C-alpha cells in the first residue's frame, strides 16, 4: 500500500470551507454538534481506517471471498470491522436519537465513509448495507420490526442486505418473480432466489437481515405489485433465540474487482419454511426501496470517488520517486549527460496526475454538496427550502453516482499509466484500484439507467424546475467569483457553457412536444456527460473562489501553496476537461437517431 491514501486536508477544506459545514450545524436538528467534535470524529475515523482497514486492502484482494462447503468465506477482518465500526457509531451515527442514532449530518457521514472507502473499498459495503437496511426498517417498518432488528444492526452484531436482482430481473425489476404467500400468522412465506447480493452471507456475523422485494400472490403485474419484506437468515423464536429461516446460500460470484466484498446467490424457501415480515403497506415495496436506493447511489459515487483519490495518491507517490528520462533543454533537446529527473517533471506525467486530481477532488466536492442538500432537504427551516434542496438533490443524484464512476475508470487508468509497465504488475496497487473501480458504473443502476433517470425523469420533473434551480445555483457561484479578476475568464466560460446547455435543452424538450420520446432519451448518456462536465466545472470554480478568499485573508488552516494548488487544478479542468462539452452538445443537437429503429442487420 502507498503510505498515503487520502488528502485529509483537502477533505476538510471541501467540507468546512467550500461547502460550509458550520452552516448546517446551525440547524436545530444538529445543535448538539460543533465543528470541533465533527473534526475530531473525522480524525478518529482516519485513525480507525489506518489501523483496521488499510492494512487489509491488498490481502482481501489476494484472498478473495469465496464459496466453500456451502458457506461463504470472507476475510476475518470483516467481523472485526462490523463490531468495532458498530461500537464507533459508524453505522448508527446518522439516525435520530430516538432510533439509537447520534444525528450527525449527512455531510459528515459522507466524509467519514469516504475516508474508509479510500482506505479499503472492499470493506465499507458491509457496514453501509447494514445502515441502509436499518434505515428502511426505521422509516417504514412497524414498532415490532424496529425493536426486533434495528438495535443489533446498529451495533454491527447483525448485518443487513438488499435483495432486488433475480436471474431474469436486473435493471427491469417489474419482471421479478419471488413470491410472498400470505399465512394466518403475522408473516408471509417467501419463495424465490436473488442474485448479486452484496455482503449476503459469511461466517463472522450471527444473523443477516435481508430486505427482500417480492410479489404477494395475486398482486398486480409490474412494479406496482412489488412489496418489501424483512427476511432474516435466522428468525427469532418464541424463546428470543435464533433458529434457521430457510434462507440458504447457493453460491457466490467471483469478480474482477472488490474481491473481498462477497457477492452471493441466495435461495429463499427451498423447504417452504422461509418467513418474511411485510415492511409498511403491500405493493409499495419499490417506492420504499428507492429511499435506500437513492442513498446507495450516492454511496456508489462516494466509493468510486474514493478509489480515484487513493489511486491518485499512489501514482503521485510513484511519480515523485521514480527517476527516469531527462528534461527537455532550452534548445529543445535533452542533455544526455545531465542527471535523469523524477518522472513528475515530465509534462505528460503531470497531465495524467492533474487529470486524476481534478476528477478526484471535483467528485469529492460534488459528493459533499449533494450530502449538504440532503441535510437541508430534511432539516432546513422552511418547507420551501426543504423542497428546493430536495429537487437539487434529485437532479444531482444520477451525476453523483455516474461521474465519479465513469470518469474514475479513466482517471485510475491514467494513474496506472503513470507507473508504466510496473502499473500492470501485482507488485503495485494501481492494478487493484483499476479492477475495483470498474463495478461502480454498474452498481445500483448502470450509467445507462442513471442517464435515463436524469433526462427522462429529473430534467422534466415539475416542468424542468430542478434544472432551473441548478442553473440558478451555478449562476450565483459565477456571480460571487467575479469579484476576483483572476477568476473572471473562468466564470465567463462557465456562463457560456450554461447558455449552450440551455440550447441543448430546447432541442430535447421539442422532441417530447413532438411525441418523439424514444428519440428524446436515445442519447441520454451524452446528456449526462454534458451536464456532469458543467457541474464539475462549477465545483472547481467554488474551490478556486474559496481559495482566493483564503489567500486574500491570509487564512489558516492551510498554507498558501495548498490554495494555489486548487486554483491551478481549476485552470487545468477548465482548459483540458470542460471543452469536451462541445462534442456532447453537438451530438445532442444533431438528433441523428442512429441508435434507434435499427435494422438488426446493421450489426452483421
Amino acid at each position, binding site marked *: 500500500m502507498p503510505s498515503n491514501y487520502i488528502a485529509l486536508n483537502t477533505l476538510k477544506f471541501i467540507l468546512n470551507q467550500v461547502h460550509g459545514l458550520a452552516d448546517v450545524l446551525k440547524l436545530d436538528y444538529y445543535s448538539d454538534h460543533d465543528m*470541533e467534535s465533527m473534526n475530531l470524529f473525522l480524525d*478518529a475515523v482516519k485513525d480507525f481506517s489506518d489501523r483496521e482497514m488499510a492494512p487489509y486492502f491488498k490481502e482481501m484482494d489476494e484472498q478473495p471471498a469465496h464459496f466453500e462447503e456451502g458457506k461463504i468465506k470472507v476475510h476475518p477482518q470483516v467481523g472485526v470491522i462490523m463490531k468495532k465500526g458498530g*461500537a464507533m457509531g*459508524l453505522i448508527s451515527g446518522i439516525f435520530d436519537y430516538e432510533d439509537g442514532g447520534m444525528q450527525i449530518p449527512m455531510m459528515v457521514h459522507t466524509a467519514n465513509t469516504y475516508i474508509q472507502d479510500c482506505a479499503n473499498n472492499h470493506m465499507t459495503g458491509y457496514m453501509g448495507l447494514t445502515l441502509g437496511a436499518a434505515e428502511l426498517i426505521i422509516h417504514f417498518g412497524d414498532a415490532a420490526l424496529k425493536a426486533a432488528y434495528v438495535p443489533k444492526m446498529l451495533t454491527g452484531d447483525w448485518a443487513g442486505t438488499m435483495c432486488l436482482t433475480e436471474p431474469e430481473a436486473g435493471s427491469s425489476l417489474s419482471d421479478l418473480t419471488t413470491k410472498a404467500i400470505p399465512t394466518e400468522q403475522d408473516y408471509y412465506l417467501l419463495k424465490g432466489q436473488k442474485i448479486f447480493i452484496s455482503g449476503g452471507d459469511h461466517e463472522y456475523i450471527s444473523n443477516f437481515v435481508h430486505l427482500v422485494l417480492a410479489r404477494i400472490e395475486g398482486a398486480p403485474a409490474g412494479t406496482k405489485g412489488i412489496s418489501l419484506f424483512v427476511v432474516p437468515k435466522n428468525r427469532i423464536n418464541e424463546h428470543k433465540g435464533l433458529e434457521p429461516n430457510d434462507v440458504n446460500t447457493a453460491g457466490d460470484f467471483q469478480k474482477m474487482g472488490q474481491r473481498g466484498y462477497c457477492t452471493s446467490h441466495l435461495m429463499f424457501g427451498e423447504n417452504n419454511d422461509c418467513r418474511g415480515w411485510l415492511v409498511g403497506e403491500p405493493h409499495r415495496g419499490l417506492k420504499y426501496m428507492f429511499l435506500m436506493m437513492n442513498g446507495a447511489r450516492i454511496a456508489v459515487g462516494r466509493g468510486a470517488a474514493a478509489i480515484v483519490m487513493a489511486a491518485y495518491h499512489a501514482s503521485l507517490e510513484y511519480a515523485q520517486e521514480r527517476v527516469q528520462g531527462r528534461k527537455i533543454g532550452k534548445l529543445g533537446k535533452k542533455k544526455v549527460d545531465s542527471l535523469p529527473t523524477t518522472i513528475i517533471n515530465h509534462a505528460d506525467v503531470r497531465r495524467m496526475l492533474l487529470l486524476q486530481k481534478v476528477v478526484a477532488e471535483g467528485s469529492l466536492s460534488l459528493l459533499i454538496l449533494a450530502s449538504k442538500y440532503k441535510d437541508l432537504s430534511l432539516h432546513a427551516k422552511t418547507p420551501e427550502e426543504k423542497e428546493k434542496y430536495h429537487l437539487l438533490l434529485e437532479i444531482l443524484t444520477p451525476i453523483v453516482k455516474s461521474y465519479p464512476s465513469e470518469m474514475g475508470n479513466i482517471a485510475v487508468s491514467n494513474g496506472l499509466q503513470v507507473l508504466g509497465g510496473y502499473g500492470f504488475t501485482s507488485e503495485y496497487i494501481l492494478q487493484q484500484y483499476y479492477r475495483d473501480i470498474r463495478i461502480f458504473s454498474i452498481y445500483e443502476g448502470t450509467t445507462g439507467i442513471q442517464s435515463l433517470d436524469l433526462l427522462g425523469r429529473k430534467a422534466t420533473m415539475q416542468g424542468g424546475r430542478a434544472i432551473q434551480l441548478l442553473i440558478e445555483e451555478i449562476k450565483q457561484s459565477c456571480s460571487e467569483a467575479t469579484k476576483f479578476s483572476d477568476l473572471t475568464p473562468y466564470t465567463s466560460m462557465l456562463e457560456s457553457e450554461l447558455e449552450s446547455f440551455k440550447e441543448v435543452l430546447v432541442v430535447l424538450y421539442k422532441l417530447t412536444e413532438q411525441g418523439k420520446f424514444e428519440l428524446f432519451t436515445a442519447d441520454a448518456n451524452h446528456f449526462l456527460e454534458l451536464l456532469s462536465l458543467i457541474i464539475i466545472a462549477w465545483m472547481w470554480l467554488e474551490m478556486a473562489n474559496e481559495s482566493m478568499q483564503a489567500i486574500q485573508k491570509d487564512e489558516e488552516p492551510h498554507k498558501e501553496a*495548498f490554495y494555489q494548488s486548487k486554483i491551478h487544478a481549476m485552470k487545468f479542468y477548465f482548459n483540458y476537461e470542460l471543452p469536451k462539452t462541445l462534442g456532447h452538445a453537438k451530438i445532442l443537437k444533431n438528433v441523428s437517431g442512429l441508435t434507434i429503429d435499427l435494422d438488426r442487420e446493421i450489426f452483421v
Partner: protein
Amino acid sequence: MNILVGISKTPETTAKIEFSEDGKSFKSEGVNYIMNPYDEWYALVRAIELKEVHGGEVTVINVGTISNETVIRKALAIGADKAVRINKETSSSWDTASQIAAYAKEHSYDIILIGKETIDYNGGEVGGMLAEHLGVSFISFASKLEFDGSVFTVEKDIEGGVEVVELNGPFVLSAAKGLAEQRIPNMRGIMMAKRKPLEVIEPISDEGFVTISQFTKPAEKVGIKMVDPDQMDELVRMLSEESKVI
C-alpha cells in the same frame, strides 16, 4: 484510584517543519496538531483501564493556550473524566513540569502518568522533573503497569532484558510502547466530551532556566551524482576530495 495524566500537543508526524527567519521559533502555519502519541496511546489509555477496573477518576492536564483544547477534548472523548488546562504557552520542559507540579500539589493523586517523551522535542525530561518537584519516585519508560489493589508492579525494558519494580503510590511514571493499546474515540464519547468539565487555571509565575537561541534543520541531502563504471579514478577522487569519506 485518582490518576493524573499529562498530555501535550505536537505536530503530526508527517508535518513539514519550518522555522521563523530569526530561527528562534517554529512556524505553525498549515501544520496539523495531534495529541502526543506516548501520552495518548499509552499513558492515558492505561490510566483509563486502571480506572475501569479499580474505580476512581482520570484527570488530564495540559499546559498550553486555548488552541490546545482540541487535543484535550480528544482525551475526554477517549475516556478521561475531566481536564485541566494551565493557560500558558510553555517555554521548556522545566516550565511544564513546574506548572503541573503546582497543580498536583494542591490535589491528591495516587499516580501520575505521562508519555516518555513528546515526538517533537524528544526531551523525555518532564516526568523526572515533575517527580523531583513532588518529591516522589519516578519510573521511566514503563511498558507494563499492574495494580493488585495495594501494590503497583511496573516493567520497563532495559538493555538485554526487563526490569520489574514493585512500589506504592504516589509516583510519576513515563509511558512507553506496550503499556496499553491505542483507543480510538467513538462518536458517543466525542459527544459526551463536550459535557465533561474542562477547568482553565492561570499559571504560577516561574523562573525560566532555558532560552532558545537557534533552531536549525539538518543539512539537505546532496543530489546523486552518477559516475560511469569506467571512471573509477574519478569516483575515488570524489569520495576523497568532495565527500571526504575516504
